């Protein structure tokens, strides 16, 4: 049996890769993908917990997370399309309208 720790470690590593990707990339598309990466890493750990704790709640959570991820992707990409139509830019450092 694979220890549960391994799954959590894997999940954490992928999550952090997602965080780093979100932070360092300029392209909003990649940033959105990094978000998906983070969500998926959480899903992995939830499914692992669900399996090891013999409780379905984790998988139900994953179900909902996938739902929210789908909604998030749809909205995020729609915003991106609208943004591109107006600004013709997908790089975050070119879009600093909210600068104080």
């Amino acid at each position, binding site marked *: 049996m694979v220890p549960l720790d391994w799954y959590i470690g894997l999940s954490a590593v992928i999550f952090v890769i997602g*965080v780093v990707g*979100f*932070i*360092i990339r300029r392209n*909003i598309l990649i*940033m959105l993908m990094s978000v998906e990466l983070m969500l998926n890493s959480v899903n992995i750990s939830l499914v692992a917990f669900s399996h090891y704790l013999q409780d379905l709640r984790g998988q139900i959570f994953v179900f909902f997370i996938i739902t929210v991820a789908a909604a998030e992707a749809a909205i995020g990409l729609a915003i991106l399309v609208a943004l591109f139509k107006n600004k013709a830019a997908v790089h*975050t*450092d070119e*879009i*600093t*309208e*909210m*600068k*104080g």
Partner: protein
Amino acid sequence: MDKYLLIPLLPLIAFTINIIFGKGIIKERAHWIAILAVLGSFAIAVSTLIEVLNGKTINYDVYSWIVSGSFKVTVGFLIDQLTAIMLIVVTSVSLLVHIYSVGYMHGDKGYYRFFAYLSLFTFSMLMLVMGNNLLQLYFGWEAVGLCSYFLIGFWYEKKSASDAGKKAFIVNRFGDFGFGIGVIMIFLTLGALHYTDIFAKVGTLQGQTINILGYNIDLITLIALLLFCGAVGKSAQIPLHVWLPDAMEGPTPVSALIHAATMVTAGVFMVARFNPIFSLSETAMNVVALTGAITSLFAATIALVQNDIKRIVAYSTVSQLGYMFLACGVGAYGAGVFHLYTHAYFKALLFLGAGSVMHAMAGELDIQKMGGLKKHMPVTYWTFLIASLSIAGIPGLAGFFSKDEILWLAYNHGTIGKIVWLMGTAVAALTAFYSFRIIFMAFHGKFRGTHEQEHHLHESPKAMTIPLIILAIGAISAGWVGIPAALGGSNAIAHFFEPVLGHPHVTAAHEEEFMVMSISIVAAIGGIFVSWIFYSLKPEIPKTLAAKFKGIYTTLWNKYYVDELYGFIIVRPTKWIASNILVAVTDGKIIEGIVNGVPQAIRNFGERLRKLQTGHLQHYAVSMAIGLFVILTLVLIAAGR
């Protein structure tokens, strides 16, 4: 709906309709609604009086407003003998003044507003007198004050009018402050607001003292004096009398209704209503009696030399109110309220008569510029004469019976009573003098005004003269309900009031009563006679007297410099504090400093903070990641321990 509720409600409805629709729809028809409402109230008041005469007393709560623990505020009605008489006085005078106003205010651009305010005032006054608890009284008390403010400053474009309104309001604040504290103290000590509860429990306070700044003060005396504070303000007694003469800036019907017949008597009504409290404190009673007597004398002397017709009548009002307090102070509450009742008619008549004169003289108020008006406006003359006779205390007329009752009961009240009796008798003589001074100067002799004014002289319209006639009837006959036993009457009104107001025990014989009566009659006739000599027979005498006693004359002419005194000791320091401390330091430095400084500080802070707002998405993400890092570290540290 029960009919008692309708008494105050009808004027309120009239007010609401007039204030909302007056400007657009009703306009010149505003009086119909107001008059009909007051007429309805009057009719119900009469039927209520008949019920009360048959021995019925009404006391019930209509509506619970606030209930919080033992604190319960209700709207309720207590209609006993006192209230019934007050209802008649308020509604009848109000009705007549409403009718009179139709003629007097004709063509004014604030016509609907005037009637709306009159209705509101009537409602407030009725709430005041009908209330069965202190808070409702207080509500009415403040509401009539508000209406008085509105009506004094009715012609608000005129600076003197708006100043007078403010003055009335501010001076009243002083009295109401004491009154408010009195109300609170009653609630704190007795835990009750309803009259019946208060009067049932007030006995338990006897002998209790309260420590204020090291002095032990009798609790009942304190409460009584605090309540009397309110009465002093509202009823224009010394030292808070200054607002009432100035209040004559308002329209004359207002002066008649509010500043003669009803509102200013609210103080007397209140003292009479709380007679169970006042009666328990000898000190408070003496204060009331002396304040009344001094005010009475004081105002009467001022009235001697004034030339403004409305001012003379106003000082006369102050004087007569002092009379009523004098009565209350010697325990003769019934006599006081009796005088209130008769006074309402003849004083309203005097004011309305003065208004009628003003109407004819195109707003001229100085009696020195009048004269010989008798032949131009006979109705006004005769009604004014009746009112003057009545106030002077000529036997048979209303004023005589009530004044005589007061003097007689004062005379019977020990040393203090004797002192105030003397003062009261003197006032009677002075009253007769200055009342007839108006008669002789304004209505007799030659016209001293301009030719144009003379040409313009005319009798007032029916809407004005009819109320005068009705009030004249009242001024003659209102006292007949109180013909004393010594004159073969039954003094019905005293017996009527006895269950509520009590009746001082009089042991003296009828002979003594005749003696007192004759002295006052002599004083009255003497006053009239002197007045005739001075102003009809030898008009040069007053001038020589004025020249001879120049000091006294100017003092009286300047109303004992009370206004100037107040100006010096209160108004100027207050203004100085206001401009030099409050405006300059508190407002200018402290409050402005805070008000401007806080946003300035936030702005400065924000200016720096917004540098953080780079607009780069990643920077926000990094801060979130750092947050995650910190939280994880904290959790680890916590778990490690």
